[in-house]
């Protein structure tokens, strides 16, 4: 029978997404076998994260300061705002090194059936940012699924009267895939959004 501390850790680890009881057990026993310094370093990193990480007051990216490094960077193009659902999406777009504008993280996507309403997202904050002026284009980069599309359409309705250019990231086929495996919706969207060569 396991001791109380191990059981406690297993119970806590099962709170993490994708971690069931068995995975939690494996992680708990792995942590027990780790050198003390390494295990404590993990614990300290979690404590520091909860202590220092917060949302940027402009774009709601994760930061340690009042304003994130992207909003604080004077070399960025402040006329463009790219709207994403989660901070993890922002990191992926940054990795492309193509986009040089600012971001706005919604912290979710609209979902009528799950009761995720506009109030629960940072949509009003986006509209306020655009209303302040200086923004020429809003690029909506929400996920290419139903929730992301619903969110994009809702934002478009609110931004249209403000006279700002609103664009949506392109739909299409993933690079490295075969056309024969593409579904009809993806393929029809990629045909509609084709580019002249």
């Amino acid at each position, binding site marked *: 029978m396991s001791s109380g501390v191990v059981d406690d850790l297993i119970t806590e680890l099962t709170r993490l997404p994708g971690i069931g009881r068995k995975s939690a057990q494996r992680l708990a026993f792995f942590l027990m076998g780790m050198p003390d310094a390494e295990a404590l370093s993990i614990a300290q990193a979690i404590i520091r994260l909860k202590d220092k990480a917060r949302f940027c007051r402009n774009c709601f990216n994760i930061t340690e300061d009042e304003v994130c490094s992207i909003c604080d960077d004077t070399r960025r193009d402040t006329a463009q705002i790219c709207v994403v659902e989660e901070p993890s999406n922002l990191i992926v777009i940054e990795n492309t090194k193509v986009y040089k504008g600012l971001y706005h993280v919604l912290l979710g996507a609209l979902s*009528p*059936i799950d009761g*995720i309403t506009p109030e629960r997202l940072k949509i009003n904050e986006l509209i306020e940012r655009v209303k302040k002026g200086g923004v020429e284009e809003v690029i909506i980069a929400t996920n290419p*699924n139903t929730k992301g599309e*619903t969110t994009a*359409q809702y934002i478009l309705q609110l931004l249209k009267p403000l006279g700002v250019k609103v664009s949506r990231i392109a739909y299409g086929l993933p690079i490295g895939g075969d056309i024969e495996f593409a*579904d009809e919706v993806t393929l029809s969207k990629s045909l509609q959004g084709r580019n002249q060569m």
Partner: protein
Amino acid sequence: MITKTEGIVLKTLKYGEADLIVTYLTPDRGLIRAFAKSSRKTKSRFGSSLEPLTHARIALWGKEQTSLSKITQADILNSFHPIRENYNDFVYVSKLAETLISFTPEAIPNIRLFAFFLNILNIIKDTDLQGSTSLHIISQIRLLKHLGFAPRLSSCGRCGGMSHDFYPDAGTTLCPSCVKDPRHQSKPFVKISNQAIHFYSHCIEWPIDKSNRLKPNQGTLAELSGILDRHVSFMLSKKLMTSKFIENRGTASKRQ
């Protein structure tokens, strides 16, 4: 064991890193939930076949009685993406899907319900009245009737007499003489207009594809929508998430 069937995606739930739990309405297995491994990855073989409202031919792996089969294949029969691309239509069809999930027991085959819901999706997709509130309310009324939970508004539910007072706790209108029953005294009720009663009766009696001929005014639609919401909330002992969404959306757009 692999089972092949067809289904309409009613709802999806993110699970783990890149997986989904999909709620299907199927003709031969009723309402089921199934697990789709790695379906949120960009190069997933499922593509858009697991998006809400998609009608697909599916293959499921697992025992028939298992609570969560694994989806091994999903071929789109009709994507219904025009509905998903129309904001108003999608919000209201989500309400229908939530109503269906809330009132339907799991794993009870119901071919007629499947055919009915598929028919509703086809009508909403093909109509030139896209985004029409009238069609949304008619669909909701017909769905409730199909599920056996439609309120009775045409006459008193006890004596059949004329009445304009709807009692959500009774699921019907009650005339003043029947309200003398101590069970209904001091219970909240809603006054219904003649127009709302007539429109409702037509919606119940007419085939849904002919209901587009009905042209109710916005006041009647708002009145009926409120009554249906109260009725459904009472039956389920909770408000539908989609009803809350529609209400909040209204206040949000007014604020803009």
